[in-house]
């Protein structure tokens, strides 16, 4: 086994001490959950992803001596778990997904103002890698170095993606303020129905 260094938490994790895992959850659980929510958009999926991170950590505890940055390591595991969760979700029948997406929308905390709603809507329309970088930076409170490590890109690439994501959000918000049609009012099957024109009201 590799030497997990002087960090008592890492030593506890490497030794398989369940109290160390509980302490780790207390330290990172909320950030991991919020990031998972931002990546996956559904509470059940986010919970499964967080659980999977901890189970994967138990399995790989003997290699924790090689870990330099535990935060980046955890969020790398979260990204992997979220990708697996999304792939699992994509294999489900469309009707199930639509019903669960509707339930997820209801369970999400409502934004106080229309701008907040538009922000959520613009956020969900971002490309996955930009949504991920927002999730890691804002919800996970990671540095660009940690984001780069978690996403397997350089610090500059992580910072650029973040900036592009913010610019895209700004453009989406500006466009939405010009045409204040609410995305949430659309039927949940609208995106998948080829018969329905996207411009039809």
């Amino acid at each position: 086994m590799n030497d997990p260094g002087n960090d008592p938490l890492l030593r506890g994790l490497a030794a398989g001490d369940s109290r160390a895992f509980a302490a780790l959850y207390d330290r990172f659980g909320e950030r991991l959950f919020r990031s998972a929510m931002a990546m996956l958009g559904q509470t059940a999926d986010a919970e499964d992803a967080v659980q999977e991170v901890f189970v994967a950590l138990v399995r790989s505890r003997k290699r924790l001596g090689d870990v330099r940055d535990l935060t980046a390591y955890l969020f790398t595991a979260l990204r992997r778990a979220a990708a697996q969760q999304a792939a699992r979700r994509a294999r489900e029948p469309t009707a199930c997904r639509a019903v669960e997406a509707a339930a997820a929308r209801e369970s999400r905390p409502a934004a106080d103002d229309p701008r907040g709603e538009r922000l959520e809507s613009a956020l969900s329309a971002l490309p996955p890698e930009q949504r991920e970088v927002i999730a890691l930076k804002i919800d996970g409170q990671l540095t660009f170095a940690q984001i780069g490590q978690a996403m397997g890109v350089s610090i500059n690439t992580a910072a650029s993606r973040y900036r592009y994501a913010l610019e895209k959000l700004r453009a989406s918000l500006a466009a939405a303020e010009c045409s204040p049609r609410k995305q949430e009012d659309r039927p949940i099957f609208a995106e998948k129905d080829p018969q329905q024109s996207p411009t039809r009201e």
Partner: protein
Amino acid sequence: MEDRQLPEELERIEQELIDRPSLRPPDDLRERVSDAVRAELQRKRPGDRWAFAAAVAAAVVVWINLSLSATQATDCRLSWGDRPLAVEAAARQIRELLPEVSDREAMRQAILLQSGSNLAWCPNPVGRPLLTKSFNR
């Protein structure tokens, strides 16, 4: 790297993202994760047993190889130094008769001949074995 400045408008959007309401993890998630961790810690992985068996098998194979190599490379302390003159002479004769045979092989053959000549005499069986007789009939 963290202190790179964003334009004011992007900073405002960043602040809006930070301030947006977000879900807290459900209270039972901590318990659920703890249960999953405990279950995983207690689970005996079948792969471990196979890894142990594979390691033992690999060690045995290496040991067999090493012992075979050692056997090939060892002369088993044959009395190479104080061999009798007859053996030297026999080896020399073998080398003369068969020049392509190496010194070591000639000596080995000579030692074999010598050891054969030192065997105790035993009576020579007379006649054929019964079984051969019956077959010949």
